[in-house]
């Protein structure tokens, strides 16, 4: 048996909750509440979030390792060039060596540009794929939220917050990983490499990588989230994953 008094009270109370017609018409999802829900989604599904994040981590790690290699190689080349001048002493022997070094530097730059483009592609594909998955497997939840009165933009807002946070965290982890691994590789090759590197440039590259990871995550998550949000609730509810 239910508590009849409570049942009546819960229905009567509704009048008190609606002081004016204007309030009554609103449908809202404050950013604070949205952030709370998104936080819940990430922490409660930590395993899933880590898989989604892993796509970002791998992509950004690859990108950062390529950039670390670039900065390290440039540092070494610069160091060798200065010592060559020092050791060579005579100007006559310097000219042909410099030409060779220049050609080699060009080839290396081209190779590195190619690697950067490749790693960007890898990041984009990895991130898009994992974000797409995490939206798709939640169609049912999206449908439920719409039944409860969510506007399409609320759904998009939730995924926006989530993917931005995952993208940022994933990028930070990825950048640290990729950078450290490549640094260790170069240190085993050339002991004093850290001293030869241009650290200002390195920090710049890492920041760019963080930006790329976050932005890519957002761009990867938003289109599927928008598509899912626009589905009629009945269709979203009946999808089987």
């Amino acid at each position, binding site marked *: 048996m239910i508590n*009849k008094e409570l*049942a009546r009270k819960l229905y009567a109370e509704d009048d008190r909750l609606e002081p004016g017609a204007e309030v009554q018409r609103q449908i809202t999802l404050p950013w604070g509440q949205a952030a709370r*829900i998104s936080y819940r989604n990430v922490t409660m*599904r930590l395993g899933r979030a880590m898989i989604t994040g892993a796509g970002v981590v791998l992509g950004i790690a690859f990108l950062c390792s390529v950039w670390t290699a670039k900065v390290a190689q440039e540092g070494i080349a610069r160091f060798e060039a200065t010592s060559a001048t020092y050791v060579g002493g005579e100007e006559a022997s310097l000219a042909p060596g410099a030409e060779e070094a220049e050609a080699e530097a060009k080839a290396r730059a081209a190779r590195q540009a190619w690697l950067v483009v490749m790693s960007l592609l890898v990041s984009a594909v990895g991130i898009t794929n994992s974000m797409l998955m995490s939206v798709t497997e939640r169609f*049912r939840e999206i449908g439920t939220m719409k*039944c409860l009165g969510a506007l399409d933009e609320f759904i998009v807002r939730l995924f926006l917050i989530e993917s931005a946070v995952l993208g940022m965290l994933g990028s930070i982890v990825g950048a640290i990983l990729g950078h450290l691994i490549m640094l260790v590789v170069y240190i085993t090759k050339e002991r004093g490499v850290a001293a030869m590197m241009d650290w200002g440039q390195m920090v710049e590259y890492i920041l760019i990588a963080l930006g790329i990871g976050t932005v890519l995550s957002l761009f990867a998550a938003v289109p599927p989230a928008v598509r899912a949000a626009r589905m009629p609730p009945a269709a979203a509810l009946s999808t089987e994953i």
Partner: protein
Amino acid sequence: MARIECPKCHHVVDTPGIVTVCPECGADLRGVMEELAHRREKMRDVAHDDSVTTHEFIVRTKELEKIYVMGEVEVPALRGVEINIRRGEYLSIMGPSGSGKSTLFNMVGGLDKPTKGTCFIEEVDMAQLDAFELAWLRCRKIGYIFQTFNLIPVMTALENVTLPMIFAGMSSDEMMERGAMLLELVGLGDRLHHKPYELSGGQQQRVAVARALANAPAIILADEPTGNLDLQTGKEIIDLLKELNEESGVTIISATHDLKMIDVSDRVVHIRDGQVERIENRADIDLDVGSLGSEADPELDE
């Protein structure tokens, strides 16, 4: 688009609002158009005015048709359904699996659009509502209960129940208090902070019932609410719904192929192949159930 009849030559014009003179006789149509817009505005106001709750029928469907198109094949799920549902009644929609109950549920609940025909909620034509008004309707006017519970898995019972209140713009404190009271009402006062997977099926469905009541809706739509529950638990959920119906006057529309639903219903609409087969009143139902022992109805035995 608006369809306007010319006041002078009675020629009917379809216009999105750009054409303002009659193409036949050149008469000025702006007066008529303004009046039409005014009337529409008024209709909208009615949709939001809670004081206007005197309509006899809270839900009316008119020639409701739904055809699902799957590639080349067309599947007619509803074929001209007309039902009028009274305020405060407990209505069961019975029919074998595949007869179109869920489809009807989706149309009435504004979860999908009919192929033809329309559905009125408190005399408001759902086909005329925009996305915002539909969301408002789903949030404030209708509570949904599903066969598969559909709780948000990462949220606690209390968070699930308060979610529709967030959308309705309720303050945090009020929300928590009301959420706790609702869970208390359905007998889960000691399970506020449990996650769905920590609850039994019957308890999850109770949370869903509490959530459906979050914004004190006028209508509760339940699609096979006992479909995933055992006999005893299913009975408890139905009794809970019936008591809520009696105490708060909320209209309950429940799709089912479960006979247990019959004796709590004020009326039973039988549908078959997307059409209303017959409608039984409570008095007739009692007779039917009485005669079940001697002469079992093979159709009802499902």
